[in-house]
């Protein structure tokens, strides 16, 4: 089934139009905000903020897709995974090698939104581990490519399990009841 056929079917479902609007808005923000930023000489900042808003919209679309079905969950999953990978690429590309690079702050906020709410638990976990490692062996936890990839991977895996394993499990259980 092609994506276009799926979208036609999705439109005819109850919340289908809301789902299409969420995807359309996410795409519009991902394209429109950087263009606006380019005109205001702040391309990267607007693109980064676009990632945050689009992530929130994609998360909303995943929840709606479980109600709509018709292959919409697969499209939402593709979008969510794709945006996650783009966030990692953007972060690694802009990392300047400095230990307190602000790009780690962007990654923190981006993954907080992308994997919300499980990212709150991940943040607390990373904060706890960092606290102990900074006290015991601070050289282990220097910000670098490995650190950035690890933070991304932990947040991404937590978000993936939350959206595509845990939530479907509970939805199936609720439907059976």
């Amino acid at each position, binding site marked *: 089934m092609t994506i276009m056929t799926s979208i036609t079917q999705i439109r005819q479902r109850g919340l289908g139009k809301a789902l299409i609007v969420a995807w359309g808005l996410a795409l519009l923000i991902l394209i429109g*905000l950087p263009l*606006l*930023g380019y005109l*205001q*000489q*702040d391309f*990267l*900042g*607007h693109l*980064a*903020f*676009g990632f*945050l808003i689009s992530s929130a919209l994609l998360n909303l679309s995943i929840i709606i897709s479980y109600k709509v079905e018709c292959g919409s969950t697969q499209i939402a999953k593709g979008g969510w995974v794709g945006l996650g990978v783009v966030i990692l690429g953007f972060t690694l590309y*802009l*990392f*300047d090698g400095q*230990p*307190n*690079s*602000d*790009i*780690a*702050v*962007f*990654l*923190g*906020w981006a993954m*907080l939104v992308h994997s919300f709410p499980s990212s*709150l638990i991940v*943040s*607390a976990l*990373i*904060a*706890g581990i*960092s*606290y102990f490692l*900074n006290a015991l062996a*601070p050289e282990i*936890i*220097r*910000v670098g490519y490995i*650190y950035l990839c690890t*933070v991304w991977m932990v947040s991404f895996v937590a978000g993936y399990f939350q959206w595509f394993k845990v939530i479907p499990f509970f939805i199936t259980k609720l439907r059976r009841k």
Partner: protein
Amino acid sequence: MLPLNYISIGLFVFMLCFTNSASARYVESDPVGLEGGPNIYIYVSDNPLNFTDPLGLKTYKCTKPLHALGGTGRRSGPDVPGNPLYHEYLCISNSGAAACGGQDRSDGPWSPGKPSLDVFNTTRCDEVAPDNKCLEDCLLSAFAGPRPYYGLCGPGTNCQEWADSTLKKCQKKCECKK
């Protein structure tokens, strides 16, 4: 405009400090400390024709974009509520000099905190309190003090939380003193 009531004794009052008319220098050091320049006894960077200090010190809350993302405004990206991509800090300033303080991190988004290196920029700062010696003293003390553990979210304190909580703490302390 120069206050005239102290001319007869050769001293001008600039709200917080006295200047000697013969030497055109502060008799006591400038309360903004070294942030106003290496000579803390100089008034308005030794350039009274271009700068004045008519109202004394004011407290400002300032922002700047994240250096990795850049930007020309107050934040990286659009300046809208909810956009967290900016650094926030506090400044005590007059028209000639400023002392600023903020929360930075020594390493990643969850690491020991350290004072941030910030500058006063009129286009990125909003006045949050008028001249108030008690508040300014409290903030200067906080600027010089140790920083809490940095935490982007959850445990720890990020720069925005530090600026908000420090200002609130000092405002509360000075309200109680009234």
